């Protein structure tokens, strides 16, 4: 007897998705038989927009790739440009960069925790965690002037200094989060009703995580000890001993389920607090920008030639920016790869054989950012028909383009 299935689309608009993304499910009863992803509704052409902007203007764009990772993208972009043009960053600026990036991680992980609770229908925890998140937003506003889109990063350093008056407030906030850790642990890791919905749900094995090249907390929850801050230390992270957090630190075992992803993120909040503490204790003196005059900086970048790669461990995973400067006003190539792009395929093993009720929490468990990830949809302007390129077609197009460039 064959199992009769029915199709159910989730998305592009659905209450559990903050951004447009389509999942086509094949379901029998309440079990998922197969799933097909259909992204392509949220491409904004940011890389295209950057073609007629200079490097400093692009920082502004990079910050707006993602509303949550608004420190990670400019961080990676600035590192890519510095790498290409050979610009040295003063040590004090490196420390301030890391402080902002880690504050962002705290706010991103707690925001995610709230959304995960909402997907489970647990609204009280949503409000509780977002209340806890407010403190770090207030601190970020004090340090940078903005709650999100901080405008802190600049090629060759940062734009605002952290002064002596800021330090007591930072310490106060860090103390607040040390206390809040207990609350978060009680609410997320010890609550039976959350455990009931997240344990043994959306499992991704260690092998799958490796094969699908997952990054960030998604990979770490499956036991892959992978963290750019640990593997290739950069910026101020190089002065610290950072270890990738896997769920066995807390529970002694790795299951790769949604609960493990919660563990990893909650522990990382605490890790970030320790990193920031180390940074303000050892904040070096000195300049915050290698070249304070933007006109002069642009002049240098205009004459620069070369390629650069900037990597950063964003809250969601590794973000890579590639920049090619070719002695012109605008960079010749700018390519941004957000962590969700890697984690997208992790959904397939996670969603396999799960129940319909698990879809929202499993989808949310990789902390997707569709706006960052979405690439392009091919639309024929005459017939307004959408087209999906297969792997073979893509390889053919790539070879053609390589030949064209080589010529």
């Amino acid at each position, binding site marked *: 007897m064959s199992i009769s299935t029915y199709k*159910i689309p989730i998305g592009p608009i659905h*209450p559990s998705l903050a951004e447009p993304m389509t999942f086509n499910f094949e379901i029998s009863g*309440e079990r998922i038989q197969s799933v097909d992803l259909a992204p392509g509704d949220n491409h904004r052409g940011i890389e295209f927009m950057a073609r007629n902007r200079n490097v400093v203007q692009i920082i502004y764009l990079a910050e707006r790739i993602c509303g949550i990772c608004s420190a990670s993208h400019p961080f990676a972009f600035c590192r890519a440009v510095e790498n290409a043009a050979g610009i040295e960053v003063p040590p004090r600026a490196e420390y301030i960069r890391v402080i902002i990036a880690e504050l962002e991680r705290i706010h991103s992980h707690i925001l995610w925790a709230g959304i995960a609770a909402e*997907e*489970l*229908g*647990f609204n009280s925890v949503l409000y509780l965690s977002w209340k806890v998140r407010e403190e770090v937003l207030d601190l970020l506003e004090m340090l940078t002037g903005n709650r999100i889109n901080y405008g802190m990063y600049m090629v060759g350093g940062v734009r605002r200094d952290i002064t002596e008056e800021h330090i007591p407030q930072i310490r106060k906030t860090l103390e607040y989060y040390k206390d809040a850790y207990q609350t978060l642990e009680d609410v997320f890791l010890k609550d039976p009703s959350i455990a009931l*919905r997240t344990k043994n749900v959306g499992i991704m094995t260690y092998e799958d995580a490796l094969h699908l090249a997952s990054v960030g907390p998604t990979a770490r929850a499956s036991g892959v000890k992978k963290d750019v801050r640990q593997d290739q230390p950069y910026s101020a992270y190089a002065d610290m001993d950072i270890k990738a957090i896997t769920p066995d630190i807390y529970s002694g075992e790795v299951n790769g389920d949604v609960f493990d992803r919660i563990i990893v993120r909650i522990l990382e909040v605490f890790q970030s607090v320790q990193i920031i503490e180390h940074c303000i204790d050892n904040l070096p003196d000195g300049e915050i920008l290698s070249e304070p005059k933007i006109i002069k900086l642009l002049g240098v970048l205009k004459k620069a030639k070369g390629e650069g790669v900037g990597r950063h461990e964003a809250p969601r995973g590794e973000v890579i920016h590639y920049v090619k400067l070719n002695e012109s006003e605008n960079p010749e190539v700018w390519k941004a790869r957000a962590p969700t792009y890697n984690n997208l395929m992790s959904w397939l093993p996670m969603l396999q054989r799960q129940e319909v*009720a698990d879809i*929202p929490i499993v989808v949310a468990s990789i902390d997707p950012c569709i706006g960052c990830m979405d690439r392009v949809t091919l639309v024929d302007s005459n017939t307004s028909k959408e087209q999906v390129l297969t792997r073979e077609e893509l390889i053919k197009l790539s070879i053609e383009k390589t030949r064209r460039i080589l010529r």
Partner: protein
Amino acid sequence: MSGGSILIFILKIFAAVTIAILGIMAGLIYKGIDRKLAARLQSRVGPPVRQPFLDFFKLMIKENIVPENAIPWIFNGAPVLALVSTITILFYIPYGSIPALFENSGDLILIAYLLTIPAVALVTGGFSSGSTYASIGAQREMVLMISYELPLVTTIIVLGWRLNLAFPGLKVFSLAALSANPIWGIVGPLGFLGALLLLLTLAIVTPAELSIVPFDLPEAETELAGGILVEYSGRNLALFELSNAVKMIVMGSLTIILFFPYNLAPLLHLTGFLAYIVDILFFFFKLFIVIFFEATLIRVALARLKIDQASIAYLIILSTVGLSGLLLIAIDYII
């Protein structure tokens, strides 16, 4: 028909209309209070208490869309059926010391049946709306209904049975008899414990009857985008909202009558009109307490369960609790 009976008939119709209107209004007010309290518990400001009224009036002026592949007469009939059946229950409930409008020997059995009709109406409405989301929601509602029916009926039957043992010859399933002889007075210490378990059973069935978290799976906003109600809009949705609000009153009243039927007036030595007023105010106060514990607190404190978990929770765990309540009361009687 004599002149007197015609007058009584007209008076009863008048009373029925009054009870229906007051019941709906009370339901909406309690819904508003519930939302406000839940908001305060979640450290939010929350909507004003009159918000359910505003929602209702807004829905009434909205367009009433019937999907193309729906079956119109079932789709439009379901909300009316749900509202009518819940309002009918209101006529059988004694409020404080005011006797119920209709009284018979099998009120409680009738109420148990009437309570299933809104759920059945939801299921037929969901299936007839021709949406996949609504179909999944309707399947879940059916499973849930089958699961919580056993513990609910256990509670009702045990109370009637125990009352029959204590006072043979009494109309044990009439609400008047049940509220005149509270269970706590006729059982020993062991039976008292059993009655507590039955109270717990009824309290946990209530969230599923009202379809609120953790048992709001048929609607499950983040999963099914409103599930069973996803295609409903405008007037039809407003009627479902009303029937849900009235159901809140019904379930709260049921708990009060079965377990806390005490009145304030005899204690204060009040008689006549004043006694009615005091008793009905006390009744609404009890209703507030019961709804706070059975609806507001539960939905603030828990995450939504999955359908298999909810089914196990009712069919196995809660049925066990209910049956051990029955066992304790039986042992108490034998001893």
